[in-house]
């Protein structure tokens, strides 16, 4: 290797082994090919010119609010503009002692745990069923995936109506099959599950499509070889499909956790966080302290505590996926 490196020391002009040294060179400097290179400064200009529009939006609407939010979290800023003075970490200290903050964070984590499991398992079942080769593929895809295309408000209207204690379809059905009525959105012990059911209906189609795409990439030869060996459908599913899907599963689980942690829409619209705060997630608490409590600085501090949680999950995800693909 070192001899190769010295062989084209003079001005990068490859004298020996042109093919190899060019490869070496391009490895070192990015991907400039063997062209003579007055390109450098023009590339710099071009590169930043192409990046500029994105960068402008990125800096103004993402980086700036991110930094400004951090600054806000250190101030007593309120929506009424009363107190702009920097108060250091007082907001964070207050938040960490705030039982409501912890309660909303706990609700978010609870929702994440109990929603992720069905959202992955049901998606897998749906994809496996469709992938067996049912006729009229479009019909199944449409039925399972269509809810994903709805706005959260539409989903909330549908389910609030179905959960209606007196007039709701669900309680009516329960009574018809001899079960007691349930106070779906009004019982603190049940409300979060009601949200999970609505969320499952709404978003499982997305995971279903990801699983289906991954299943259809498993080479058919695997299954053909297995059938020749006399493996049945169940055996094939557990010995071929599931192992081949492992990377997809890891990814779907992690994507789902990050998505579930951000829950807000359907809770706010169906229960407004009730009954008695039993379903209020942390994003709603951020919203409420900021816009109904007018405490923007405090609200920003809770945002950053929540952000810390997301970063922690992402870091775990990074190490898991890296170990897997290593």
């Amino acid at each position: 290797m070192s001899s190769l490196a010295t062989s084209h020391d003079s001005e990068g002009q490859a004298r020996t082994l042109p093919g190899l040294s060019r490869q070496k060179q391009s490895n070192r400097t990015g991907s400039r090919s063997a062209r003579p290179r007055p390109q450098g400064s023009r590339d710099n200009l071009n590169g930043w010119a192409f990046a500029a529009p994105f960068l402008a939006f990125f800096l103004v609407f993402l980086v700036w609010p991110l930094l400004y939010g951090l600054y806000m979290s250190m101030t007593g800023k309120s929506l009424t503009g009363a107190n702009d003075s920097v108060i250091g970490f007082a907001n964070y200290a207050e938040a960490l002692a705030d039982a409501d903050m912890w309660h909303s964070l706990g609700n978010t984590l609870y929702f994440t745990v109990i929603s992720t499991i069905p959202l992955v398992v049901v998606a897998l079942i749906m994809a496996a069923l469709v992938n067996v080769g049912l006729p009229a593929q479009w019909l199944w895809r449409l039925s399972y995936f269509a809810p994903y295309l709805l706005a959260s408000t539409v989903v909330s209207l549908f389910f609030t109506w179905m959960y209606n204690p007196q007039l709701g379809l669900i309680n009516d059905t329960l009574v018809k099959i001899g079960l007691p009525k349930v106070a779906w959105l009004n019982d603190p012990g049940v409300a979060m599950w009601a949200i999970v059911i609505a969320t499952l209906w709404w978003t499982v189609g997305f995971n279903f499509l990801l699983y289906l795409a991954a299943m259809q990439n498993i080479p058919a030869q695997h299954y053909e070889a297995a059938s020749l060996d006399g493996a049945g459908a169940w055996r094939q599913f557990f010995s071929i499909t599931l192992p081949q899907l492992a990377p997809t599963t890891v990814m779907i689980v992690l994507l789902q956790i990050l998505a579930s942690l951000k829950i807000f829409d359907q809770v706010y619209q169906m229960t407004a966080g009730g009954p008695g705060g039993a379903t209020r997630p942390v994003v709603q608490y951020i919203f409420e302290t900021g816009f109904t409590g007018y405490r923007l600085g405090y609200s920003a501090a809770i945002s950053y505590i929540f952000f810390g949680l997301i970063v922690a999950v992402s870091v775990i995800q990074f190490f898991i996926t890296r170990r897997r693909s290593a």
Partner: protein
Amino acid sequence: MATETLTRPVTATAKSSAGRRTGRRMTPGRAAVLAVAALLAVLWLVPFAWATATAFKSETDAAAPKISWIPPSGFTADAFIKVFQDGNIPLWTWNSLYTSAAITAITLVISALVAYALSRIDFRGKKVLMVVIIASIIIPPPVLIIPLFYQMVALHMIDTSWAIILPQVIHPAMVFVLKKFFDQIPRELEEAAVMDGASRMRIFLQVVLPLSRPILAAVAIFVFIGAWNNFLWPFIATNDGSILTLPVGLQTIKSAYGIQYAQNMASALLAALPLILMFLFFQRQIIKGVATTGLAGT
């Protein structure tokens, strides 16, 4: 994280498999599969069916203590007529349509440009830029709502469509989906143009973009659906009834109509219609779009 999942070839997941292993004879196993799949499909369609049945009832029948799929006094389109006369749903649909279209268009243009630079141009600071954009993927939008609101007030954009559009055009993950695709386009295709002395912009517009239609469509679909259904940010950024998007507008209707169940369901169905129709027409592209960008965009 991101780079590793992204190194999978983007096209791999988009392979079509229409009708794979279909048309086999019916065995007990396949009959069971069909039965379970059908049961799930029915469960997944019930909310639509029940909303439709309700929307076509009179308010009296909808609120009757004994619930029924077929109302005693027959079906009526009154609720739809009332909602239409109200005029809000068509207005909000239009607002959603053009804000989502604008978000999608701006996202595509700025993301494709930066993705091309990251994929093909060697410029100083490229690695830093790449790391910064990758890192920004983990920023959850809810964290930004407080400072963004403050920013919009300062820019006098609150209650304008710009407030809805501008903060939604940054999709770092989509930049990498596009970059990954550009990386796979053989350089030889550009070399002829380089020999002719074509500018970077010309190569980008005339060589790279035409070859990238599938991925551009996939990203467009993904961004459009997200923008169409986004609730939290437009909810905060707008109060003015004339610029509300559909999801936010519906939220106001819910309290306004109160117990008008038939009208509530009629509004919800009308709001659901555009994307469901879009799905029926562009099913293949939407599925590919979601699968490709969903898998690669992590």
